């Protein structure tokens, strides 16, 4: 009848001999430390790593094929586009006069998807079209060549990729016209009237 209530984990030698709890604390501590170290190590690389993103070149970048996927990056003082397996083409950032941002919604799947939607009976393709679209950001650059001739290039970027690129271009001295800020906020971007 005279029994003491003893916790199940309790041993007569105390907590020192309960390795499982110590191990749990240790693992938790190591995990936190590794996370903190990784976070600290990641911050400076974000600052120093130049912008690079997979984009689709729609048109205008001299030397690059239209509607081609590739990597758009900033290498030193040049804006570079490289299609995989092909030599990179680049323009000097100093030659970029304007940067415009926009947004567009496109149907995904290309021609095969379009054909299959057309062939779907009872208007099923239309229902598919309701959901088979994706929003993209567009980056429009206006730059000049060695002779002063004006070029325009349009890139299609995944959502959210254009802001760091634009910021980096602005940091490199690309002039920003007032309408571009408005263009970032609304999908139907406006452009200042340039009466020649």
């Amino acid at each position, binding site marked *: 009848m005279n029994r003491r209530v003893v916790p199940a984990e309790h041993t007569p030698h105390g907590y020192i001999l309960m390795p499982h709890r110590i191990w749990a604390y240790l693992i938790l501590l190591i995990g936190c430390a590794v996370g903190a170290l990784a976070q600290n190590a990641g911050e400076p690389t974000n600052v120093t790593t130049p912008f690079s993103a997979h984009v689709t070149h729609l048109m205008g970048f001299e030397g690059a094929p239209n509607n081609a996927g590739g990597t758009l990056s900033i290498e030193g003082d040049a804006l570079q586009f490289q299609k995989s397996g092909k030599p990179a083409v680049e323009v000097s950032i100093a030659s970029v006069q*304007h940067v415009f941002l926009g947004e*567009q*919604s496109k149907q995904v799947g290309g021609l095969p998807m379009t054909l299959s939607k*057309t062939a779907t009976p009872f208007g099923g393709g239309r229902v598919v079209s309701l959901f088979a679209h994706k929003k993209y950001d567009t980056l*429009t650059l206006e730059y000049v060549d060695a002779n002063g001739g004006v070029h325009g290039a*349009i890139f299609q970027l995944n959502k959210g990729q254009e802001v760091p690129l634009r910021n980096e271009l602005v940091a490199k001295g690309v002039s920003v016209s007032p309408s571009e800020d408005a263009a970032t906020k609304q999908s139907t971007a406006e*452009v200042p009237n340039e009466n020649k």
Partner: protein
Amino acid sequence: MKTSKRGSWILPAMAFVTIILAPSRLPAQTTTAKSSSGNGASGAVQWSVQVDKVNSGDVDIEPAFQIAIYENLVDELGKTKRFQQVFRDSDRTTNAVPNLLILKTTVQKYTAGSETRRAVTTVSGATKLTVRSQLCTREGQVILERTVDGNVRFLGSNLRATHNLARNVAKTIKQSALPDPSLSGAAQGAQ
């Protein structure tokens, strides 16, 4: 009985074939220039052309569309072989070019479409562009002025309208009679 049975499946089959074939013809359904002039004959001495940046006028149009029209115009005019050289806006080398025309493009109307609406409804969501194109001499004398449309009604992205527009502008210029560069004083007659 046999003929009626045969007829019963021929009609749906024809309808199916029509549905399948119709979209492939749709991209070609872009409107051409509203006004036209006689078919031109190129002279021995060719003009060169400088494409100016697209003026948006009073129309709110996305910068990507302006740039796309400009780039497509440079491409399409080069394909026509109508001009000796096609120069870009502000190109300094044009100073040394003797027979130079300047193509000025002003947006008159722009309807922003939606590719999704086109795919879902077929009848709505068209992207429509109307521009006024002017070919001028260095002195500012207009030798050709046309209003040209470029639309995307069914298949293709919205920017496809700029390609169709540029193709129509190039086609219009190709079909128009330009004055002989050596007799550019008589250029007024081309209007």
